[in-house]
Every structure is written in C-alpha cells, then in structure tokens.
C-alpha cells in the first residue's frame, strides 16, 4: 500500500525547462508546487571537471541510465521493435534541469508558417501538395498569439542575437547583443551574402555579456570554452533551468523539489486526475502525491508513456487514424550537409560555444517556392562553432581509409582545417509514425517501455538532398578545397547521433477529435492535466525546439493559473 502524502495545489513531473518555468510562474502567484525529479540534484559548482569529452560526450554521464529504462524502436508496423540498448540517434536527459543542463543553447522561434502549416500549404499550393498519410495540421495557435511568450522566455534566458529578416515579427529586440563571430563564421556570412541569402548570428542562450533578467537573476558571460552540448556550464553563462527559473521558484518558499522520485502513474477518478504515484528510488517505497492539478513536464517519451500507462486520453490507433495519445511523432532530417576541407587554412575550431553559429533561413519553412519541389517545409542552414573535440572529430576526405597510416595523417592534417555547413530539416508527421507501449520490453519497475514506429519518407529524402545541395553551394563559395556531402538519406538509423529533437505524441490543436491538448496545453479529456513540452508539437520545424517549448511553457503557466481560479476547459 502506497504511503499517501498531504494534497498540494500542483504536482510537476520532471524538473527541466518546462517544469522549472511552470514552477517559477505558479509559485510567484502563491500556488504550492511539488516537483518530482527522477534524477539527482545539480548545481554549477559540480561542473569544474566538466571538460571531459570521454566522460560526458561519449559515456553520457549526465544522461538517463539506459539500464533502468530505454525506448524500443522499429522502422514500421511489420517489424519487431527492439530496445535501444545503447545511445546513438538521440540522448535522454535526467536529473535536475533535465536536458536543459546539457543543451547547446541554440534558441529559435518556430516560423509563423509552422503554426498554420496545413492552411498555409493549401492556400499557396492546393490540397494536392500534401501527400496521402502526411498528417500535418494547424496548431490551434498563431505565431502572433504566441509572440509574447517567446519574448518572455527570451528575456528570462537572456538570449543573445540579432534580427533575422526571414522570421516572424518581434515585439522587442534580443535582450543581449549577438555572440562574437569567428573567421569561420565570417567566411560563411560572406559566402551567404554573395549568394544573395540572409545570414544572421544564431540566437544563443550562451550569453554574449553579463545579464540580469526580469526575475533578478544575474549571470556571467560565455567564455567560449567549447564544452556546451552534453556538458553543464561551470560559469552559469549558458541559460539552464538550474541557474534561472528553479532558484526563482525556490525563493518563494512554495516549491518543494524531490529528487530520486520516479513517477509511474498519474492517478485519476472519473475524468480528472487526483495526483501521481511515484517511487522513491533510494528506498524503493511507493508514494502517492495527491494534487489539484497535475503537470507533466518530462521528456517527450515519458510524457506519452505516463498517459498511456495511466489510461488518460484516447490512445492513437494508426490503422484507423483515430485517437490522439501517441499521434504525430516527428523527428528531424539532420543529414543534409556539406563538409569542407581547407588545405591552406587552419581555424580555432577547438574553441566555441554551443550556440555559436551563423544561419540562413532562405530554405526554411515556406520562405521559398515549393511549387516544383516534391516536399514541403525546409530547414535552417548553418555553420556551427560548438568546439571540435578530438575524439569525436576526425573527419577525413571521402576515400581515406578509416584506420591506419593514411587515416592518422589525414585526420591530424585536417584536425583544424574542416568546416561544416549543415541543414536542420523539418520533420512532417505521417499516419504510421507514432508512439505506443511496447508489448515485450519493460523498465526497472516492470512497466512497458515506450515504442517508436518511425522511418524516413520520400518527403525526408527529397528534403535532405535539397538541403545538401544548398549547403554545398555555400561551402563552394566559402572556398573549400574539397567538399564531401550526403549521397542519399537512407533509412532512419537509431545508432548514429542526429538530434535530440523528438517531438509529438500529445499534440496541441483546436479540435479535440484530432489533438490531445488545447492551446494552453490542457488535456481535452482531463481538464486538470497539463502536458508541457515538445510533445505538443504537431510537427517538427527546421529549428532547435527549446525556444518554442519555453514559449509554450509560459503560455501553459498562464493557463494553469486561470484554471486554478475558474476551472473548466480554457479553450
């Protein structure tokens, strides 16, 4: 029999970006919140031994321990899904701050086109442009409606950036100026300008100068130490939940964080949630935490898994195309790129910052004409200077053996002479791409793992090829002596890292028949449950997702406050 604790106003499941933002906004207004985090406590002082590529980038020290829980994957419904036994394609966060601790800090706003993708695609190209089985739909919110929340997230995090001429309108400029640029980035800017494109400094959460946010949180400037992605920031320069929103929530005295607390069920009575059941992983004890409002803010996979396991919401049926929980899982097309080898120049690519880069959006969203193309949407194209660490960066021109004398001499010759231009391609949902519970494999408690059924489609192959060609155009203009690029996309492969930008499964929308949450991320089928995160994305865009997750989290916080007062469905 589980131990039952006194009821609280709000229980938050997972304390990363979404959970931290919700906690800060709700506690400021006097609500009592409990945050349940399955991982451990974290603070900036823990990060002095952080510049360790082996431990953090290759042994995944900050990531979820897969021996306890993983996901299963198959390319289509006819195959047997098998567990992701080792990390590859994406990496899962764990611990206070979640993936927000080890993100790169590349912070974008999705395009106005994204939020109304179906309407706008039909408006410009007609309904026939959308292939059968491609389940794109409008998000039930417009860019203009979401703009104030983007603004709020950016001011909280102190995003450094400059105007992007091809993006949605901004109500105010970036809170801090863009990051420094580098000779490699300038080369990209010049080439892009020559090609009549519109380059801009990538919006960065790494902080170009010291900054104090509206909550009074002061942070130092980035030192370009080159250890962002997969690492925590020892300066607190990179915006992460632990140095921004979590301390604000804690200061109110109304936020209690319980680490080592792994939530297994959302408890319900009728069509309302009554709280959650979790396990204290240090003792094994099962504990019930009753609450008026339940907010799921774990990563995409666990948000979906918790609802399916708890019997909340209508599970998606990929054959009939009905139901919503697990629907529209999407990913990204990251392999369209060009690698340039420069025989006569070396670059300080050992230095960098997670979000240091230069971007063009000329081939993103619907910023270009798709009339004669066999795909919709597109991707941002960028050069990134995140810091080339030596174990993971041994690029050699195609044709070089992968080991032995020639490999060694070429990998050393080009150690500081390689630049890459890469596309971050959008990912459209399809009827047969979805998440559900695996029938065979279990986690450490005996609960089923989440199962991913997903593969690349013709849309993705065409997009990858198109982005590759655009990347090559830029790389040629940059003057590389030798350029390698993608031949063809191939099937989706879970073994090679692409991006931790998994989305969908509990998507937002205006219609309860086709979406799981409204535009406050409130569940249509259980009005005191809010599910906050990239689960709400009806498709994935050609950008990193965090900025949009942050905006949605602020929007959801507003919704929760209003629900607490009035109750009922908010939209």
């Amino acid at each position, binding site marked *: 029999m589980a131990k039952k604790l006194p009821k609280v106003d709000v229980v938050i499941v997972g304390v990363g970006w979404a959970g931290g933002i919700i906690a800060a906004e709700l506690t400021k207004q006097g609500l009592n919140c409990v945050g349940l985090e399955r991982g451990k406590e974290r603070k900036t002082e823990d990060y002095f031994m952080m510049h360790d590529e082996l431990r953090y980038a290759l042994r995944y020290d900050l990531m979820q321990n897969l021996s306890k829980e993983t996901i299963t994957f198959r390319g289509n419904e006819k195959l047997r899904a098998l567990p992701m*036994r080792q990390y590859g394609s994406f990496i899962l966060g764990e611990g206070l701050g979640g993936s927000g601790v080890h993100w790169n800090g590349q912070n974008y706003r999705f395009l106005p086109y994204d939020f109304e993708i179906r309407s706008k695609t039909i408006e410009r190209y007609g309904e026939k442009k959308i292939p059968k089985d491609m389940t794109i739909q409008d998000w039930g919110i417009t860019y203009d409606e979401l703009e104030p929340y983007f603004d709020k997230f950016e001011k909280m995090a102190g995003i450094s950036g400059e105007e992007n001429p091809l993006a949605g309108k901004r109500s105010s400029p970036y809170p801090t100026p863009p990051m420094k640029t580098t000779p490699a980035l300038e080369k990209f800017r010049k080439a892009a300008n020559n090609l009549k494109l519109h380059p801009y400094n990538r919006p960065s959460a790494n902080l170009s100068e010291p900054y104090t946010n509206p909550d009074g949180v002061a942070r130092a400037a980035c030192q370009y130490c080159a250890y962002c992605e997969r690492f925590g920031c020892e300066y607190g320069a990179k915006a992460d939940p632990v140095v921004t929103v979590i301390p604000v929530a804690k200061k109110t005295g109304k936020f209690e964080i319980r680490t080592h607390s792994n939530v297994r069920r959302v408890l319900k009575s009728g069509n309302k949630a009554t709280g959650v059941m979790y396990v204290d992983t240090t003792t094994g004890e099962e504990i019930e935490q009753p609450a008026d409002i339940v907010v799921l803010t774990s990563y995409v996979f666990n948000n979906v898994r918790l609802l399916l396991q708890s019997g909340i919401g209508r599970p998606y049926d990929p054959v009939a195309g009905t139901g919503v929980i697990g629907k529209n899982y999407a990913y990204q097309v990251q392999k369209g790129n060009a690698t340039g080898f420069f025989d006569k120049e070396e670059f300080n690519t*050992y230095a960098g910052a997670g979000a240091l880069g230069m971007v063009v959006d000329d081939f993103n969203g619907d910023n270009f004409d798709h009339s004669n193309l066999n795909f919709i949407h597109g991707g941002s194209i960028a050069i990134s200077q995140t810091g080339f660490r030596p174990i993971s960066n041994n690029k050699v021109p195609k044709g070089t053996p992968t080991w032995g004398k020639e490999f060694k001499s070429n990998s050393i010759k080009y150690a500081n002479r390689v630049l890459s231009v890469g596309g971050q391609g959008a990912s459209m949902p399809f009827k047969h791409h979805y998440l559900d519970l695996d029938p065979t*494999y279990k986690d450490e408690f005996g609960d089923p793992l989440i199962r991913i059924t997903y593969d690349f489609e013709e849309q993705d192959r065409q997009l990858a090829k198109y982005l590759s060609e655009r990347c090559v155009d830029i790389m040629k203009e940059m003057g590389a002596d030798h350029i390698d690029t993608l031949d063809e996309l191939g099937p989706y*492969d879970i073994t090679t890292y692409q991006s931790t930008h998994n989305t969908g499964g509990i998507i937002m929308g205006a219609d309860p028949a086709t979406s799981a949450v409204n535009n406050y991320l409130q569940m249509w089928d259980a009005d005191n449950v809010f599910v906050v995160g990239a689960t709400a994305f009806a498709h994935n865009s050609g950008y990193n997702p965090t900025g949009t997750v942050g905006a949605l989290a602020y929007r959801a916080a507003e919704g929760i406050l209003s629900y607490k007062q009035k109750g009922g469905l908010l939209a």
Partner: protein
Amino acid sequence: MAENSKQQEKNESLSRRKFLKNSGIAVGGLAVGGALGSLLPFKDKTNTDNLEVKNPRVAENYTQALMYFTREQFKMVEVATERIFPADDNGPGAKDLGVAYFIDHQLSGDWGFNAREYMQPPFFKGEKVQGYQGRLRRREIFDIGLRELQNHSLTKYKKNFVDLNEDEQIDILTDFAEDKVKLTTISPSGFFNMLRSSTLEGAYSDPLYSGNRNMDGWKMRNYPGSQMAYTEVIDKEFTVIPPKSLKDHL
C-alpha cells in the same frame, strides 16, 4: 640496411622537430634541453622501455598495470591499436600513447560491463538500424575477439598475431574490419569497430584515463585540451595554445 636506418634516423629527427613545434615546447626560440626532449617516448625506440626509469624527472606511473587483460591480451591490443593508429611524423602511435592501458582500464569499469545500457532479454537479431542487440558485454566481446584474432593469425600465417610482420597484422585486422572471417558468437567488424573507436578514445581522452600520455595525442593536432576560456582567441586567426588537462582544474 644501413641506408634504411640512416633514413629512419633522419625521419625521426624531422618528426621530433615537427612535434616539438606543434607541442608548443619550442615556442619563442627557447632552447630545448635534453631533459625535455627525452620526455618524448618515440625519440629512440630502442630505449623507450627504460626511459622513464632512467629519467628522475618523470614520476613513476603506477597506473600502468592491468585491471582486466591478461599479459597476452594486453600485448595483442598494444600491437593491434598501433596498426590502427601508428607512430608517424606527426607523433606517437597508440602504443606510446598508452592506448592499451586505457582500454584495459575502461573494460574493468562501467563501460566494460555495459553497466549503463539496457541488457535485459529477450534478445533478437534485429535490423542494422536498430543497433546492437547482443547479450555479450564489451569485456566478453574483447575476450572472444582477441582469441579469434589469434586463431585467424595462426590459421592464415601459422604465427601468433604479435609475431606477424606489420603487413600481415594489417591483413588480419582488415579481415575483421571487412567481415572476412566467419565467427559464430560475435561480429568481426563489430569487434574491430569497438577496437578502433576505443583507440581514438585512448589517444585523445584526458590523460586522467591512462591514454593520451603526456597529452601527446592533443599536441599532435594542436588541441589545447581543457582550457577555462577562449575569449582571447575566439575571433582570431588560428592560434596554438599549449594544452592543459583536468589535473589543472583540481
């Protein structure tokens, strides 16, 4: 033969100059004394084994002992990784970087036991895109892989792997890399890829882990290791910075 060794001498002094230049030791016309120079383990191959004992400036390294491998396995790994990442004009190879110690020490811990990976049954052979689906852990794969490497050498050349000449060793490893040996329990290329990736890890990880000895792996490619800040060079042309390791941050 005499011609060869002369050429070799020339190559070695050339490479040593290049390496000193890269390593930042020779910056600013500073005269490089014998003591510093002799720290380079590949300077004189015949004396390599005794160098550290003779030179009082080098603290004895007690971590160069084995946690997992047998001595025979260790020798094989030392040779195989050297073929993957050989000494050349750029600097030392896997052997002198301590790569075999690195792998040995890694196999004795979490990584060797796949401790943070999902190892629950049932086990099914999957599609390639579904990743590793075996029940064997890395240390077991190394045991089997090294035994099979030996068997294949004995079958093909009637000699132990470590006693083959370089070309023959490369040939044996190529058979594994290209799945030209038939094995029932493990994938030959899977084992080879693990050997290859752990060689690079041993060459370039922080010296804390027993490889990248003396940060020579980093020096070869002008990687500055673990620096606290690059604010001074981030917007500048290419700049060589002498490396630091995590030891400097304690």
